């Protein structure tokens, strides 16, 4: 096996594999959700992936509804959903609920979390919350150019090891890191990269017991509902919107995939 051959095997090499599909999204193989804090460049990443030109703006809260687009890479078709920016999955405004419901119940094949490299610590709060509820995620460490200007260095390998997911440094405005991101999405979606997402350890056995008791009940009542543990935890915390969803049975609809755009 010569080195030429290796190079050609590397997915990053095949830039021409990328076909931007814009809004033509029939027959989708994978659904990719774009999540992240406000103003981290999700829409710019979205535009780079899909070739669409969603309006982007340098202010938090620009995207309030979800935008959808598609691309095709290595003979698979991907649908990308650009979600509103959110600081956490615990809050209650309509735009943040849109993001939360989709990650929780839309069952994306891969969740790409776009993070601001210059404010990593705060961005990690959302990253950790997302990793609580999904097994397949990629961290896109955006705004690396700004981080560089501010003399911030990030040890991506170590970060990837800590989080248990691929970490891709990028500067989406300059279109840097996009081929690598596309390749990482493909690896996670196809299962060639198996994520071992970071999970919070500091939970008491008492809490774990309560969560699993409640999760069992929920499973019996709403068969097929994903992320039972998370829903159980939110119920325990008294999240009004989740309580309401249980009371009215709305939650059951989520499990049948009303929110899921998957074919």
């Amino acid at each position, binding site marked *: 096996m010569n080195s030429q051959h290796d190079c050609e095997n590397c997915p990053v090499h095949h830039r021409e594999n990328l076909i931007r599909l814009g809004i033509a999204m029939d027959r989708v193989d994978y659904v990719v959700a774009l999540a992240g804090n*406000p*103003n981290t460049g999700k829409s710019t990443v979205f535009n780079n992936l899909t070739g669409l*030109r969603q*309006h*982007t*703006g*340098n*202010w*938090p*809260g620009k995207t*309030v509804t979800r935008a959808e687009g598609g691309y095709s890479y290595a003979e698979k078709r991907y649908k990308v959903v650009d979600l*509103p920016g959110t600081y956490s999955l615990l809050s*209650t*405004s*309509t*735009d943040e609920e849109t993001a939360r419901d989709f990650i929780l119940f839309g069952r994306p094949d891969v969740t790409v979390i776009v993070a601001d490299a*210059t404010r*990593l*610590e705060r961005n*990690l*709060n959302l*990253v*950790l*919350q997302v990793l609580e509820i999904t097994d397949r995620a990629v961290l896109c460490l955006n705004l690396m150019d*700004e981080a560089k*200007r*501010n*003399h*911030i*260095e*990030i*040890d*991506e390998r*170590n*970060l990837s090891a*800590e*989080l248990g997911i691929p970490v891709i440094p990028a500067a989406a*405005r300059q279109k840097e890191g996009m081929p690598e991101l596309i390749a990482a999405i493909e690896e996670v979606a196809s299962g060639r990269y198996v994520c071992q997402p*970071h999970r*919070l350890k*500091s*939970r*008491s056995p*008492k*809490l774990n017991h*309560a969560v699993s*008791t*409640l999760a069992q*009940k*929920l499973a019996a*009542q709403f068969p097929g509902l994903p992320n039972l543990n998370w829903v*159980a935890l939110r*119920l*325990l*915390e*008294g999240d009004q919107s989740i*309580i309401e969803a*249980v*009371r009215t*049975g709305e939650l059951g609809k989520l499990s049948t995939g009303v929110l899921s755009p998957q074919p």
Partner: protein
Amino acid sequence: MAKKQQNSNEDILSLANNLRWELGVDFHDTVIESIYADASRIARKTVRTQGEKPAYNWDFKIDRIVTSRWLGFPIMFLLLALVFWITVSGANYPSGLLAGLLIDSLHPVLKNGATAIGMPWWLSGVLVDGAYLSMAWVIAVMLPPMAIFFPLFTLLEDFGYLPRVAFNMDSLFRRAGAHGKQALTLSMGFGCNAAGVIAARVIDSPRERLIAILTNNFSLCNGRWPTQILIATIFIGGAVPAHWAGLVSAGAVVGIAVLGIFFSLVVSWGLSKSVLRGETSAFSLELPPYRPPRILQTLYTSLIDRTIFVLWRAIVFAIPAGIVIWLVANIHLGDLSLAEHFIQWADPFAFFFGLNGVILLAYIIAIPANEIVIPTVLMLTVLSTGLSGMGEGAGVMFELNSVTDTENILRAGGWTLLTGLNLMLFSLLHNPCSTTIYTIFKETHSAKWTLVATLLPIVLGFIVCFFTTQVWLLFFSHR
């Protein structure tokens, strides 16, 4: 079955209640704390900052000036005024060129072509004089100012100035009992009110979100900027020496925009003190770093997303409106056309508010899109004053090469500085366009609040125009 389902849903909730009781109250905090602790542990391990942070200092220095207590607002107004001044002074020449091409040259060709293929007079009237001319007018009048205004505005947005505007206005909104993020939805409204109404989703509390939706129409939108700019150029700019005209008319447009912000605050305050009473919620607004705007991309997106989008919408609505105008001008009941009947009937009522019947009819025809108010006004004015030599007959859009021609028509129609001023005020304070009304209904799911959002501004508009007129007449009774 449904009953049973309901019961077991309640069972789950009561189980959750019991478990929560056993766990104690502080466990929610423990969950949050452990997330924060892990985040900071991982960040400490993987992030290294070397030496100085020069870029932050720059951002910090700029922010110190543009969000300072004393300079924040003057800088904001100056920037706005500068943008309008460039728009006003830059748009006139290309406007004339487009009008010359589309109206002077192309219209006769189409008209002759229609006659040549034997089209009946009423059909060529509806299509060429109605639909085509109103479309051509919209392009000639609106394209140049939009092509200048939107890229400039988008550059400011891309640079990161909008959140600073929100930051500056936050305390005002909070004092009005509204949410600080309403400053952002208000800024969006400057582009398009329908977009501003949707943007109100960023506000968590339903009460404050409703206030933001109800008051968004006080942000001058795309469709109304050209009206403001044109009328200000003619009447306000015309009232001062020529070398001041550009500056003063730009100032007048900023004045109207600021008045809109003022009404937004006052109405928010009124609502939050009466029907929408409640606590103001706190929030944190992040000031993003300043980013060098990407000039080419900005030009592209502002041209495609905004200029062409708005222009297209204007054209789509202008064509049927042109047909309606031609029809009301050419269908006669007795001696007078439908339009003349309405104008004569509405005139006494409208004069009371310093407006006229033409303006009222134009605003009724233009409910689908504010963009076509000015073309409609001009066409109806020519019709109702029976100006000769300006067009090819009643209800036909005429040839306008410049702002001066527009001015001549309006003055012939009995317009004064007061009419111009009142039209500017009424353009700020009237019902939202039909798209926005529909969007408000979709966002609030309430016919009642949609009705309030529709009627509130128009009632305010009549009140403001009335007082302006009475005060004006008190001082300049010669009218």
